[in-house]
């Protein structure tokens, strides 16, 4: 609890903050009473501090000598700032100051006032880097929590949208906002999310990726938590009854539950004609299958089942492969690993250098390894098609890389039989995943005919507008 003596309080705060260099304490007189304004350097906007705090304080009549009268003026009568809350202990002062508030302490009053004058530098709202689309908004989430909350609120100007903020991380004290649409969301689901966040043992939360594992069920391959950079996508997920989580310091907002089929649905599908959306979604599913299965299938057919390859194609493949020193499986593994190296290098390098690496890796090395006879052109083509197809479903990129590699080994070592057993195991594994009681593979399996209007196909808006957006079937989830 705070003392009545100003000096004791400031000493306590300074001791709690280990006399850190960015702690600022400005002593002044408000009326005839001594006050101290505590803030954290760099966390506050100096203009707002001057206009909203120093100017009103210096404007108090010097004849007012009663500390309680000054306290009443700051707490109620003076129009200081819209974000104002009382603080009653040194710990509360430290929490407020590190969050960008300034705290006014008055000599003779065992209470302080935290005033919202946050003013740290943030990135402005720009186009999302990873989730681009053609006709949607150009706004993406940024690192500042309150900016992100306003981006969401701007899209739902209704009391249906409910935010609930909390603090996680013993050391970082990161602010997290849990959002939901009141009429469609499942209250039990929200409570479970909040419970998991509260139980999180982390002391440092710097990114949404820190929180994500605590919201997931333990599936080794697929994540049942979705992440998006786009406020419009985030709002559409909330509208379907999901629970959203925005984390201060991360431009990615999370939502639960996430289903497998959502990886193939893009915002652009809803602005195009339904028939085009159907076509493009089928292309995405095909691309996913091609990306994980094609190299393994090629290795299986070339090694074990050449009779399944059409004769003319088989002759060409045999001619190309006869010029290379390695087996089909070895070539396939080498090229796939090489592609993964290039991808990783392209991701981590600055964009200008990244382009150069892509050109050198893709064109120069690719061309040379074929002309030097190290790998066959059909194999290079197979890996290239599989890799490009993988980019179509960007959210499953990591899973695709791993699955492709396993299928290459299974197909190359055990033929179509190995491929079949591996596919079955992956299928069972994906079907065993559940996200907050919801099967990850639904509505494909368990099948829901009702949900098919927005899974492979996308029904027209006239039809979609008449249907319940809620993901929970028959209210079971409520």
């Amino acid at each position: 609890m705070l003392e009545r003596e100003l000096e004791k309080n400031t000493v306590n705060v300074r001791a709690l903050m280990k006399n850190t260099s960015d702690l600022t304490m400005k002593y002044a007189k408000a009326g005839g009473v001594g006050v101290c304004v505590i803030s954290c350097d760099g966390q506050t906007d100096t203009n707002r501090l001057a206009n909203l705090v120093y100017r009103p304080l210096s404007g108090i009549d010097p004849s007012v000598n009663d500390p309680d009268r000054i306290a009443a003026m700051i707490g109620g009568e003076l129009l200081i700032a819209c974000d104002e809350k009382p603080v009653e202990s040194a710990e509360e002062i430290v929490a407020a100051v590190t969050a960008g508030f300034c705290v006014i302490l008055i000599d003779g009053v065992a209470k302080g006032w935290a005033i919202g004058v946050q003013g740290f530098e943030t990135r402005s709202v720009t186009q999302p880097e990873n989730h681009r689309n053609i006709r949607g908004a150009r706004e993406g989430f940024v690192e500042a929590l309150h900016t992100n909350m306003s981006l969401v609120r701007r899209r739902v100007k209704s009391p249906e949208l409910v935010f609930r903020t909390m603090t996680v991380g013993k050391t970082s004290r990161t602010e997290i906002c849990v959002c939901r649409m009141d009429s469609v969301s499942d209250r039990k689901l929200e409570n479970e999310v909040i419970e998991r966040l509260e139980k999180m043992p982390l002391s440092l939360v710097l990114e949404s990726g820190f929180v994500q594992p605590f919201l997931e069920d333990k599936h080794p391959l697929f994540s049942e938590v979705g992440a998006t950079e786009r406020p419009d996508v985030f709002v559409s997920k909330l509208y379907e009854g999901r629970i959203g989580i925005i984390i201060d310091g991360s431009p990615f907002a999370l939502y639960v539950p996430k289903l497998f089929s959502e990886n193939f649905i893009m915002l652009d599908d809803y602005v195009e004609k339904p028939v085009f959306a159907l076509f493009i979604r089928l292309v995405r599913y095909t691309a996913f299958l091609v990306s994980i299965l094609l190299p393994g299938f090629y290795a299986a057919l070339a090694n074990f089942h050449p009779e399944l390859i059409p004769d003319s194609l088989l002759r060409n493949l045999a001619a190309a492969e006869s010029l290379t020193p390695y087996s089909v499986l070895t070539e396939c593994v080498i090229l796939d690993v090489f592609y993964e190296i290039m991808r990783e290098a392209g991701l981590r390098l600055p964009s200008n250098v990244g382009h150069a690496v892509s050109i050198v890796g893709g064109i120069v090395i690719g061309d040379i390894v074929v002309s030097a006879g190290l790998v066959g052109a059909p194999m290079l083509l197979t890996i290239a098609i599989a890799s490009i197809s993988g980019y179509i479903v960007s959210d499953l990129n990591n899973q695709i890389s791993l699955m492709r590699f396993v299928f290459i080994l299974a197909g190359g070592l055990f033929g179509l039989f190995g491929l079949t057993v591996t596919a079955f195991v992956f299928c069972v594994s994906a079907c065993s995943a559940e996200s907050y009681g919801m099967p990850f593979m639904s509505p494909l399996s368990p099948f829901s005919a009702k949900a098919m209007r927005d899974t492979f196909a996308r029904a027209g808006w006239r039809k979609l507008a008449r249907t319940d957006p809620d993901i929970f079937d028959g209210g079971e989830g409520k």
Partner: protein
Amino acid sequence: MSVKTSGIGTGGLAAVLALSRIFSEAALLPGEYIGYGMQRFTAVVLSFILAAAVWLPLYLVMQRAGEVSAPDLVCGCGRAVSGFTGTILSVYLLFCAAETGFRAHCYASGTAFDSAPSAYFYIFTGAALLFAVSRGLKPTVRAGFLAFAGFLLLLALIVLSLLPDIKMDRLYPSLIDDPRSLLSEVLDEFSRSSELLLPALLCRGQGCKPAKCAGICLLMSCGGILLMTFLYNTVFGHLVSLLDYPFYALSSVSDITLLHRINGIDVMIWVSAAIVRLALFTFAFRETVSVCFSAKKAAPVCGYVFGAAALLISDLFTAYPEMYDSLNNVCSSGIPLTAAAVMLAAASGTGLALKNKGKAAER
């Protein structure tokens, strides 16, 4: 989008059971079993009518009992009856599972998977089975449903690609050519209806209705087999009995060159279906052990032992095909299936009657 949040669903389980049933048809050795001409259609329809008649009493009893499984009802007859019924059921399930493993191996080694030697076929199938059983019934049925969707897609592709090859004049009007062969075909087809037992054992607590599930499975299987028979007859005619696996061969006769190669996909679907079928029999065995022998804790381990035993017996059949033939001769008469169905219906009915009597006495 709206999704189901719990259970495996009546339609889902029925579809998977139908896929298992169609697998046992597609993985047959047709030189021995499949006839040619309209008589075949009559045999299929009659066999399904017979199957419905044999399984109907069990499902009528179960419908009256409400949300319980058949072993639960059997338990009401006392320990001796429940143990006896459990033993008979276990032996029957073991034979069905072993037959599945054997047929899957014959099919795999006779088609595109001819590179799969016996040892590694059983090792990998066993590993996949172990994984599926360890994950539970729900994921297995869901994965099986995806394989069913793959089968429908394959069937649609085959039908589309074969349209120019379908010759309706290969269907001649006589429904019965030879009454003795018709009877043998009907019994043979009927003896493969063991999937209809599974809803009675698996539906408890899974959000699906056993009677409805068995009914849907019956209709889907009948439709699927009739369609396959139609394709065999109109495309191959009298050559059908000379082909090892007509459904596999159908994939290769299309005029569309690209679709020639879907027979590889065909094999992939049937091997997946075989693993799902094996897993379903294993789950049914676990339920039997858990309830009939009151060994809930030992049931999971018994399930793994059952799977391993089924694959070992399959391997034994592979080594001694004459042993399989003698067993199959008995089973294809339909006697074991009828005995299992009648015994289970009688024991369940008695159990239900005793339960109702006990309730009435309490009142």
